[in-house]
């Protein structure tokens, strides 16, 4: 995820390509009607060595990670860290309160740790759950309510029943002619340029 996505006020990188009207180009999109077509097209883009491109689909296509050749996310490690931090914090706090405001319950020593297990567990789960949602969003560069693709009418169908591949102009391998040829070879329809914002 380009970190600059989060900071739209930073000066943009100079556009590599411009349309005939002089607008900077964000990328090129092509449309597919089935998940299978998009999947097999993705394999071609992967094999051609593109790096900054993506498949847009109304549902997660099973196995698309392999077809796109991208790595497993680090999310589980973050979630584990969040969960254990929360659990440790909760346990430490209860332990500290047990001495700061001592209440003898059923004659047990103040240092007994067993009653603290429940809240330690619950708070660990709570922190892990928040980490899971928030780091998923952060790694995806969301929330981000603006994007060049949203300016494209046909892109709206990707949340309904269409599949789209977009290759960014920032990709080193991007070339208007060759990329368009690859789209056409993989059976894409409505191949077109997307203007940057």
């Amino acid at each position, binding site marked *: 995820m380009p970190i600059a996505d989060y900071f739209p006020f930073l000066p943009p990188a100079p556009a590599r390509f411009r349309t005939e009207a002089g607008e900077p180009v964000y990328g090129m999109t092509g449309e597919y009607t089935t*998940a299978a077509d998009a999947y097999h097209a993705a394999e071609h883009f992967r094999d051609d060595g593109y790096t900054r491109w993506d498949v847009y689909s109304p549902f997660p296509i099973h196995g698309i990670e392999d077809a796109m050749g991208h790595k497993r996310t680090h*999310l589980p490690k973050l979630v584990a860290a969040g969960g254990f931090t929360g659990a440790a914090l909760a346990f430490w706090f209860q332990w500290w309160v047990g001495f700061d*405001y001592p209440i003898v319950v059923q004659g047990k020593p103040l240092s007994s740790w067993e009653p603290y297990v429940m*809240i330690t567990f619950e*708070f660990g789960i709570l922190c892990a759950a928040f980490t899971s949602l928030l780091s*998923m969003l952060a790694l995806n560069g969301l*929330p981000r309510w*603006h994007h060049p693709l949203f300016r*494209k009418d046909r892109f709206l169908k990707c949340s309904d029943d269409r599949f789209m591949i977009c290759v960014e102009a920032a990709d080193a391998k991007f070339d208007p002619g060759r990329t368009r040829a690859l789209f056409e070879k993989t059976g894409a329809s409505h191949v077109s340029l997307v203007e940057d914002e």
Partner: protein
Amino acid sequence: MSTLNPDQVTAQRLAGALGAVQRENVGDGSLIEDPSVRPPLVLNDREIGEITEIVCGYAEGRPGRWWLPIFLVTSTFVGILLVMVSYLIITGVGVWGLNNQVDWAWDITNFVFWIGIGHAGTLISAILCLFKQKWRTAVNRSAEAMTIFAVICAGMFPAIHVGRVWFIWFVFPIPNYNWIWPNFKSPLLWDVFAVSTYFTVSLLFWYMGMIPDFATLRDRADGRMRAALGEGRKRLVPDVLRGYIFGFLSLGWRNSSRHWHRYEMAYLLLAGLATPLVLSVHSIVSFDFATAILPGWHTTIFPPYFVAGAIFGGFAMVLFLLIPAREVMPGFKDLLTLHHIENMAKILLVTGMMVGFAYSMEFFIAWYGGNEYELYAFKNRATGPYWWAYWTMISCNVLSPQFFWFRRLRQNPLAVWLVALAVTCGMWFERFVIIVTSLHRAFLPGEWHMFFPTYVDILTFCGSCGLFLTCFMLFLRFLPIFPMAEVKAVMPQADTHAHH
């Protein structure tokens, strides 16, 4: 604005001008006898776009004539609830019938009842997700919604039963002038943390599941589609407003595969976290009772027994609400098939027998344990002054699910609905039996009292049912009630290797 316009039919479909295509429902193809063939999860050969059409149609179009009358009745009960709770707070807990030794009665019965209902949502979402049960997609969104609404109802009762509700913040470890901390060794405090964690995590889970569906609703509310077309259907909420609301809630979701990858991982992790959570919450609720020394409460079977009961009661509530919804909402039957209902009926049968086993095991241990107080408590349950509550519980919870041994009854929505209704009542009685029959005969005969509900007790409970149903009616009307992306992903069209 770009000059590219989608072809006219697609534009009309996106604008919702065509509506979902209604098809003749020729039998229910989901009931395939051959065990080697997986029954379809979506009937009538629906296309992917039709799923969008059906589900968004509920949130965008006008509901049927049934919606408003039901909503008015349920929201009247919300009004009654507000009056009763205000009366309670102004006057004191003495307006309830628990003005004697039976100092936990309908309040805590209702609390445990609602929190139990709230378990089905996370169970369906999380545990069935981990077990890769694809049929969960038909019911998980509405079951998660029920979880949220039921936990809201549940959380209200402990808060108002303390009497001076303005001191309820004492249960949270907030630094205060007196430097007093809550007692972390008390099961009641564990309960506060368990229920509030459960509510928060369920809410996150529910919301996260809806992000892609909000994006679909956002895209359908987009003005460009409408401008290309002219006008669509008349709608209650204007498109521009809906575009802003769903646009905000969808957080700019773009359906990118790189995003989906992390999203699916996060969803799986949340499911993995919610599974032990859902088991822990009702266990901790049962500690409220099990750590007391009162005969009838002081048993080690309580945690698993409560969890099984919660799953049982939760599934019953899911069936109780979704079977009527299936009848009145167009296209619902294609997504929630008889196959789904049959699966849930089987779960009711299994968990009903677990609960029945727990009931009998309690009696066995009371006798085998040789403690005369314990034995008396259980004899008193079955034959004492509250015998009618005990036998209502047994007939609703243990006997009524036995009908599901018969395939014809599992596949008959009316029969399943009636059993679900019986189980919902039975589970309320289970909590009443546990709480009141144990408290009304404590160790000293001087503490022996009967509990009779007052009209405030009764109307507060009816009001909480009204609150639950009102929230559910609003959910049916305004939110995506099926997880569109997940339903699409389990359809045959999602298979990338079928067309080689």
